[in-house]
Each structure stands twice: as C-alpha cells, then as structure tokens.
C-alpha cells in the first residue's frame, strides 16, 4: 500500500530508468528529495547531472527546462508550490505553451511541470493556491490532476511520454493519504480520458483531484444514486464522458477546490448547457471555493467544499 507521494516517486524512478533523456530539476529536489519527498532517492541513483538542484528562480527553472526540451531532453521540472509559479508565468504562459505553435511545429516542448496545489493543510495564501483554470485558459498546455496513488503513477508516466507540455497538479492534501495498492510494473493512465469513479443514476458529480474523495464520501452517505466523474485531465477535457453521464442522470454538480468565478466548474456547466441542456431536469450546481485568496489559515478547513456541502447540493438537485 503506497500513498500518492510514493506513487509519483515510483513513476519518476521508472521513467528515469527507462529513458536517459528524462531529467528532474527544481529547488531542493536533489539531496533533500523535495519538500514533500516526492523526488526521494533519485539523486542517489541518477546523480546530480540528472537530478538538478536549481537556483531559487521559477522563471529560471521553467525557462531552463524549456531549453532542455527543445534540445531533445524530457525535463520534469518541480515548482515547489504552485503559488511560486507566477515568477515563471512568462516562461510557462508565453513560451512553453506557445513554442510549438509559434514555430510552425518545428520545435516542441515535451516537458512536465509538477507542482503541489490546493487548500486544506493550513498553509495560508502562498502555499494553498489552485490555479488550474489559468493553465487551461492559456492554450497550449495539457493540464492533469491525479486523485489517487494509482492514477498519479499512470498519469505521470503518460505525461512524461507526452509530446506536449504537461502541467501536472498534485493535490498536496493527498500526498500522505489515502493509500492503495499500486502495481510495481509499467502502466500508463491515458491523458485526455475521464474516469467514472462510481456509477449512479440520479446525479452526476464532475470533479477532480482531492474533491473526488469528498464526492465519493457524500455518495456513500446519501440515498440518491450518485455517479462520480473524475476528470483526471482538465485540458483536453473528456467531454464525452461528462455528457454521457449527465444524459443518463439529468442532474449535474461540479466540485472543485479553487475560486468559483471563472473556474473549471463554469467551463463544465457551460459545455453541458451548450450540448445537453435538454437532458437536464435540475439547475446545475457549482460547488467551489469562495472567491477569496486561497486560503486564509483561520478558515482553511471550510475553503474547499466539504462533504456536508456536497450532501446539501445533492439534496437540492434531487428536490428540484
């Protein structure tokens, strides 16, 4: 039984063994093994040329990784907390995401940016952000959010093998628990495919990352039959799986641990409205974080939608 931090660590070990073009870089990823120990043991096994402790400069890390990717390596860059990524916003949003397009397809940026996201560990305004909507909106970035140790390993391996730059957002609240069996052997979880985490007939909950577990818990505690769709990849989004589920249940709740306005919930709700509004029997509910800086220490426990809020939303759509 392993947790998500270990599962990601396994993926890194295996991919670095498989392909010597894979290198890891970031702040404290070497001897220390990363602040969450996700890169533990890599430095000892692969050495400082492949497991690179960098200066404290996120633009530097991302730009350096972009150069490596252009030259044929497969860099996996770690940004210690996503909150620090804005120092490298130019590199990520202007250059990494647009290299392929602006070069007419001559250059590619096959790289992964791994970074922890999310509230729930009382970390204040600069260790709790979850700006996935920004990355989805940027055009040119594949955006992946794992929810379990099993899909974390398989999705990261797929991300490292992907031809496009992948932003791999790791919900930090899931690093230590839950644990599950993760196969030692090689497998990938396909990018661009959602997962039906639980089947049901009355309500569809579309969610991703840490909120998958809250949705599942709520589903266990309600009388309604709830289907939980774990998006896994936010861009490109697997709209077919979402539409299929909503067409069956007629009720949609979207849950995410990030500000509501302009968030992924809006995108899912709008897409369903465009393509399947005639199948809906109740208004869509967006359950998200409040539009606050994410997230104040004193109120961190109620920033992300709680199981109780999910249960109330289920009641509401069932009663409509």
């Amino acid at each position, binding site marked *: 039984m392993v947790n998500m931090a270990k599962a990601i660590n396994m993926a890194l070990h295996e991919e670095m063994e498989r392909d010597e073009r894979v290198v890891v870089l970031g702040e404290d990823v070497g001897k220390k093994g990363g602040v969450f120990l996700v890169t533990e043991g890599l430095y000892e096994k692969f050495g400082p040329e492949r497991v690179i402790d960098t*200066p404290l400069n996120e633009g530097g890390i991302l*730009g350096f990784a972009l150069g490596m990717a252009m030259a044929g390596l497969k860099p996996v860059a770690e940004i210690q907390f996503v909150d620090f990524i804005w120092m490298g916003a130019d590199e990520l949003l202007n250059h990494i995401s647009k290299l*392929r397009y602006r*070069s007419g*397809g001559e250059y590619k940026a096959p790289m992964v940016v791994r970074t922890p996201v999310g509230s729930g560990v009382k970390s204040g305004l600069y260790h709790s952000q979850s700006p996935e909507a920004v990355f989805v909106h940027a055009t040119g970035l594949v955006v992946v959010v794992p929810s379990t140790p099993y899909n974390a390993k398989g999705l990261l391996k797929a991300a490292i093998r992907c031809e496009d730059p992948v932003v791999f957002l790791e919900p930090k609240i899931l690093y230590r628990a839950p644990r599950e069996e993760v196969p030692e052997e090689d497998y990938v979880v396909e990018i661009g495919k959602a997962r039906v985490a639980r089947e049901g007939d009355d309500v569809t909950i579309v969610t991703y990352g840490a909120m998958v577990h809250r949705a599942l818990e709520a589903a266990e505690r309600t009388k309604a039959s709830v289907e939980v769709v774990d998006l896994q990849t936010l861009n490109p989004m697997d709209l077919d799986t979402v539409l299929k589920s909503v067409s069956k249940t007629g009720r949609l709740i979207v849950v995410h641990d990030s500000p509501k306005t302009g968030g992924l919930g809006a995108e899912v709700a709008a897409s369903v409205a465009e393509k399947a509004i005639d199948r809906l029997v109740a208004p869509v509910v967006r359950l998200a974080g409040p539009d606050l800086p994410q997230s104040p220490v004193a109120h961190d426990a109620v920033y992300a939608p709680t199981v109780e809020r999910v249960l109330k939303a289920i009641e509401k759509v069932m009663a409509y």
Partner: protein
Amino acid sequence: MFYVLEINLEIPRQYTVEVREPRVFRVLNDDGSPGEAYEVGYKPTESDLLKAHRWMVLGRVLDNLAMIYHRMGKVRSTYGPHEGHEAADAGTALSLMPDDWIAPYYRNLTLLIARGVPLETIWAKFFAKVGDPDKGRNLTVEWGGFKQWRLLSVGAPIGHQYIYAAGFAYALKYRKRSEVVAAYIGDGGTSTNGFHAGLNFAGVYKVPVAFFIYNNQYAISTPVNRQTAVRRLAVKAAAYGVEGVAADGTDLLAVVKTAKWAVEKARRGEPVLVEYLMYRFGPHTTADDPLTRYRDPREVEEWRRRDPIGLLERFLVWSGIYKSGEVKSVWEEAEQAVKEAAKVAETQPDVPIEEAVKDVYSFVPRSLTEWLEEL
C-alpha cells in the same frame, strides 16, 4: 524633513565591492584604418570579410525595402528594422561553427542572412504567406520556427531567450555535444528576469553559451541610462561569476575578434558575456517615430560616422581588398537579389485557415474543430 546623522559610519574600502569598468575594445578608426588592436586575437580572412560585407549589404537593403513594403501594406505586420546592427550580426555569425546554435532576439536580420536563410523565405514571412516557416503566425521579426538554420525560437516578450539558451546548452553538454549556443539580447533586455536567470544558471552549471548584448542605446524610447545605473553593461558579468567584455559593435573586426574569443571559451564550458555598443538608426518599429518624440537628429548624425557598413567599406578600400567601384556592384547585386526574392514570395498563396488550428498541441482539440466548422 531630511536628517543626516553626524556620526562616522564609514566602512573601510577593503570591505566594499569594487567593479573595474572595462575599456571598449575597438579596432577600426573612423576613417577605416585599423588601430593597434588590429594585431589582437583572431584575424578574419579576406574571404570572410567579403562574405560579411555582402551579408551586411543584403541586410541593409532588405531592411530598407521592408520598411517601404510595410507602408505599401505588403508587409503584413509591424516591422522592426535592424539598421546599425549589421556588423555585430555578421561578425558574431562568422565566429560560429555551422553546427552551433543561435538564440536570436528580434533585431538580428543580417544574422539570418549569414545563416543562409533564403531571401524568399524571409519575404514569405514578412508577407505572412506560404513559405513562412512560422505559417504566418508571428510578427515579422519574431523568428519562431527557423530550426533548419539552427535558430532557436523567439517571441516578443524578450529576455526568455537567455534562460532557454542556458537550458539548451545544458542539454548539449549532457549529450556530450561540442556545439555552442550564441544568445542575443538588447540593452532593455538586460533588465529582465530572463537575462538574470540565464546568466545565473549558465554560471552555476558552466554551460556552453556566448551571451551577446546589443547595446544600441535605446529600448524603444528609453535610453540605456534609464535602464541601469551601471555605465558598461558588460560589468554585469561579474555578478554571475562569468567573464565580460565590451566591444565596439559597429566595427566588424572588433566584433569578430571578441566573438571568436567568446564562442571558443563557451565551447570549453566557460560562459561569457559580451556587450556590443552600437546605434539603432531606425525607429523601434514601423509604429514608432523617434525624431519627433525622443531623439536629437544631431545624435543620429554623430553615430553615422560609425555606420558599420561604411566603416567596413573604408577598411576594405584602405587595405586594398576592394577597389572603390567594386563596392558599388555589391550594392547593385544586393538590390536585385532582394527585389527578385520579394517577387517570388509575393506570388505564394496565403496560409489556409486549416493551418491555423494545427500545432497548438500534438493533436487538434475538439473546440478547434468546432470553430473551423462554425466559420
């Protein structure tokens, strides 16, 4: 109120940082005769000099015609001329091996010509027609996809080319290759995080990059003394533990000698920063008007004495490589070649709309297919 403490707060000199400002390396006098630095370092061959002169003239002619074609509406987007940069482009290009890489910035037209990019290809890009390696996606002087000529990709938000040049060079070193990356930036660019990160990472990992600054005195309208409080940009090298040099960028011989030194040093794993002093004779872009807004015409006249092409031509005549009539024929041939290439590029078709949705990803996403259907 402004208070001054009346007590002695002095820290003795041996504890404070001292930076020695280097002399600017120059070979050619205004009249084209070489000074004593002529004997220093690498000496380009006669054929190198003739080649460089042709590139520079082609660059100037193409630049001037692009400005005219922009006014006529043929050049599809804003154009940024590089007049005044020709010697720095030609001299640094001469110093590179064919396998070496270039991380350009946008005012590097002669560099592309030196690298062998066909004139038709450059015009196709300016006209945003088929034949443009960037498929009509970028502004005229954003060199996006010139990989065939070993030019890395640059977008308008400048600075980043320094940091990805360092990463690219790290990969070259990792793969045990002997190629070098030459990275270019303007004086304004030295204020960016990309400049800082690039030099910092390159210094830490000892990667093969020759960093070139084109100090052409202006970032659009902002003079270099508003960009930084240091007088010589080359002194910034000291902060990154790399060597720095300042040279006259209007003087092809000074450029070749310093660039050759820098490139070969980089090849040994010692990154170098070279500042080239020059002047941007034209506007920032076709959307800029320096003479009515921020520049004294006497300053432009003063710099004309160091026009890189005129200076080189005076040297070529002084040294007997050229008779004066031969200079004229180089210009005539360049005019003809540039105009003919424009005619060829003009007849190319426009980039079809189906091309627009490609290359965002390795796949075409659903929303883009739907957009094409909506049109």
